[in-house]
């Protein structure tokens, strides 16, 4: 019998898992994908929002400000990249100055520190490439950028080290109430558990509605992005927003934590939560809207485009906590922006509730820190040379664009919850994320994966089963 079964290994599920791993509990995380961070968590803006957007009194407002400061602490504890770059919300028309004032007031009420309304000259000083049309802006110095993959992976690894089990490629199709809790049926067997956490992103309504009569509806809301080369990452240093629309925060332009330039997302409600295709119209819309903020947007430096899906709950706020008519079933549903920022706070909140319910004790051997893959780019020459001496694989460059070595790739495969796919290696090390988009390194990464996993290169996948990168041998069909 499990104490807690968490549905979904995205940023929310992994955060809850990590917080629950402080307690003496038997926790299992299941996810249908072959790696953690494969849903909404993998395709978003990677912004740590300051917290002025959400209406005061909402869960979003409360958890955003908490999450903002928690992420900063976590980035130290769990060793993932975070940068407090600050954000600007641009106002292009004097008529809209009211809206900026309102955002400012809202931010102050929500407890956001350091907010300022700045005028044109100051905007240009902070961001010379911003349009001359910007009349004023809300400046939030506490906003930041984070790597969403490494945030999620770091929390998952730390949870795993602290005893949480992960069952991947595990798809749940039925949840039934039992006398002592719930029975969760999956393709990998049926699990008996005292409590269930529903952190299933765009599918969270499906699981909620299996156990509750108070139905919820998640509307998948697709957003498309363009990612540009690091050579143009310096086009902006802050995250540049425009005034929000009713579908969200609008198209932003930001430098990512790794120094690329990211623009997006647009917002389109869709039927199918896994419909993550990009469209020509959507990508042009994103480029055109971003150009309103940054007229000289270097679109020719685009290295890839992608789409992600937000789990929008029809009433617009997060659904967090024990389900009223299903005791022991905890929702973490409708987690859309600022969900990434809120994740650490959601983790704390849900873990406390569940620990209370189960009368769980804190463990005394909880390990609160985690070291990431050694990153030569952050080392001094002497440190790097010492690392190479210890392990010469750190001198064998595999990904040319991002200068990622075999040592880093091997570490990403061998560590707890290690990578088993090309995408898994890519998200943990950045091998294949550069300007050639893995054209050069993917055969080599596939070889390393096969060697480390003791399998044939023909079994190596991009991500989930069915995404094998090769199809048989030469001449076999002749």
């Amino acid at each position, binding site marked *: 019998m499990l104490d807690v079964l968490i549905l979904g290994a995205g940023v929310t599920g992994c955060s809850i898992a990590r917080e629950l791993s402080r307690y003496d509990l038997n926790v299992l995380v299941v996810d249908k994908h072959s790696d953690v961070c494969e849903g909404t968590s993998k395709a978003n803006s990677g912004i740590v929002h300051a917290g002025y957007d959400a209406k005061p009194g909402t869960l979003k407002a409360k958890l955003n400000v908490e999450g903002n400061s928690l992420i900063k602490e976590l980035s130290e504890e769990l060793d993932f990249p975070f940068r407090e770059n600050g954000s600007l919300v641009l106002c292009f028309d004097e008529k809209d100055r009211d809206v900026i004032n309102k955002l400012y007031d809202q931010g102050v009420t929500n407890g956001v520190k350091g907010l300022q309304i700045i005028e044109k000259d100051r905007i240009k000083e902070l961001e010379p490439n911003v349009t001359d049309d910007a009349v004023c802006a809300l400046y939030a110095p506490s906003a930041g950028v984070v790597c969403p993959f490494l945030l999620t992976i770091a929390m998952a690894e730390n949870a795993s080290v602290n005893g949480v089990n992960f069952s991947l490629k595990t798809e749940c199709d039925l949840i039934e109430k039992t006398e002592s809790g719930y029975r969760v049926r999956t393709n990998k067997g049926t699990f008996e558990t005292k409590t269930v956490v529903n952190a299933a992103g765009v599918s969270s309504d499906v699981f909620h509605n299996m156990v509750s009569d108070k139905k919820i509806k998640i509307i998948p809301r697709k957003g498309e992005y363009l990612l540009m080369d690091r050579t143009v990452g310096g086009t902006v240093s802050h995250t540049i927003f425009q005034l929000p629309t009713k579908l969200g925060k609008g198209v932003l332009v930001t430098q990512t934590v790794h120094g690329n330039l990211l623009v997006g997302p647009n917002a389109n409600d869709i039927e199918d939560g896994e419909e993550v295709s990009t469209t020509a119209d959507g990508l042009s819309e994103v480029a055109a809207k971003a150009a309103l903020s940054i007229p000289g947007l270097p679109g020719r430096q685009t290295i890839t485009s992608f789409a992600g899906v937000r789990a929008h709950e029809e009433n617009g706020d997060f659904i967090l906590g024990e389900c009223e008519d299903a005791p022991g079933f905890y929702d973490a549903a409708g987690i859309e922006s600022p969900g990434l920022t809120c994740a650490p706070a959601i983790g704390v909140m849900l873990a406390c509730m569940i620990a209370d319910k189960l009368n769980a004790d804190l463990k005394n051997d909880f390990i609160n820190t985690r070291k990431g893959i050694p990153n030569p780019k952050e080392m001094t020459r002497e440190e790097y040379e010492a690392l190479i001496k210890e392990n*010469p694989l750190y001198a064998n460059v595999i990904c040319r*664009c991002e*200068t990622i070595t075999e040592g880093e790739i091997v570490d990403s495969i061998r560590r707890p919850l290690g990578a088993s796919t090309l995408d898994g290696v890519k998200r943990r090390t950045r091998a294949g994320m550069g*300007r050639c988009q893995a054209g050069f390194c993917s055969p080599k990464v596939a070889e390393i994966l096969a060697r480390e996993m003791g399998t044939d290169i023909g079994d190596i*996948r991009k*991500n989930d089963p069915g995404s*094998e990168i090769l199809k048989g041998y030469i001449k076999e069909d002749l």
Partner: protein
Amino acid sequence: MNKRKLVIIGGGPAGLAAAMGAREAGVSDILILERDDRLGGILNQCIHNGFGLHTFKEELTGPEYASRFIDRVKEAGIEYRTGAMVTGLKPGDNGTVTVTVMGRRFGLEDITAGAVILAMGCRERSRGALNIPGYRPAGIYTAGTAQRFVNIEGRMPGKDVIILGSGDIGLIMARRMTLEGAKVHLVAELNPYSGGLKRNIAQCLNDFDIPLMLSHTVVDIKGRKRIESVTIAEVDEKSKPIPGSEKEYPCDTLLLSCGLIPENELTGMLGASINPVTGGPVVSESLMTDIQGVFACGNVLHVHDLVDYVSEEAAQAGKNAAAYLNGALRAEGKKHTLIAKNGVRYTVPASIDPGNMEDKQIVRFRVGKNYRGATVKVTCGDEVLSSVKRPVMAPGEMEQVILKKEVLTKLPEGADITFEIVE
């Protein structure tokens, strides 16, 4: 610190020929740095024939062509290091260049070079850079990545293939995949003309009845795990898809052969000027970049269609680097700037100092569209230096004009020389 007279970055066709050129011109201390575990570069996976007619007067495959140069380099006792990735270049003291190189066998090392020849080659344009919408499943490869899987690993990237782009590697891979048992359904090309050599259309597509659809492109990719189909549409003169012309083709593989980009990250680290048309560094008649002592040749300079010309250009770069190391290249001379216009997209070199040139100077360039019976005209002021009618010129094929020193020395010092196409 390790000090070398000449460091050559890249052990492919350009680096090998540059090394020989420098050695023949008297440079004894040469080090070639190659990132792969063997010399030869991309030629090792170009197993098709058609190389070497110009250089060796016989038709060779890529590995054979490479081995001829590798044998020469080994016979000449030129030092080389494989598994050696150069990760940094910066100007050092007294006109030297500091080369940072990494490798499993030797770790991390700085080498001070008296001169450097850039011979890093090029890379393929990726799907992301092409902005093709749709899903991002497995089964989408650049033609060169697929070529490596097939020709080096002996594995098939897929069996039902669509190719976007009619660059030479795409055409070659259409035939390779067919001969390895795959079905190649078609090659779509955005432009109204092919980017590859005509002979490759004849022998790689026509021989196997593979249709070439000009003015067509991929407008959607379907398949969540593995690619399942692509949608191809016809495009108008502005390369915009024509609504209603879409047709969906089932496939398990999409290969991209949509252009090559010189690999100039290291060049950028040095602060050398880059020509936005070629993506390669701006070079003088000596193939020297605007950083003293740093030369460039082969596909890192501008994308060639024939390896023979890469070898020729690289040998010249090696010879020039030797002259530089001997103090025989002057830096202060007045230069003619070469202006590319009216259909000439760029010229390599970008300038000529007649004081540094040999009796003949090859100027290589590409044209912007197909021409029949047009003339390549080279002028300086009112004076026509060269006017040659060409039966056919195409963007996919590099052109060249030879300028004579005796002509250039008579021109006004530093006057612009213009290259253009007259129809």
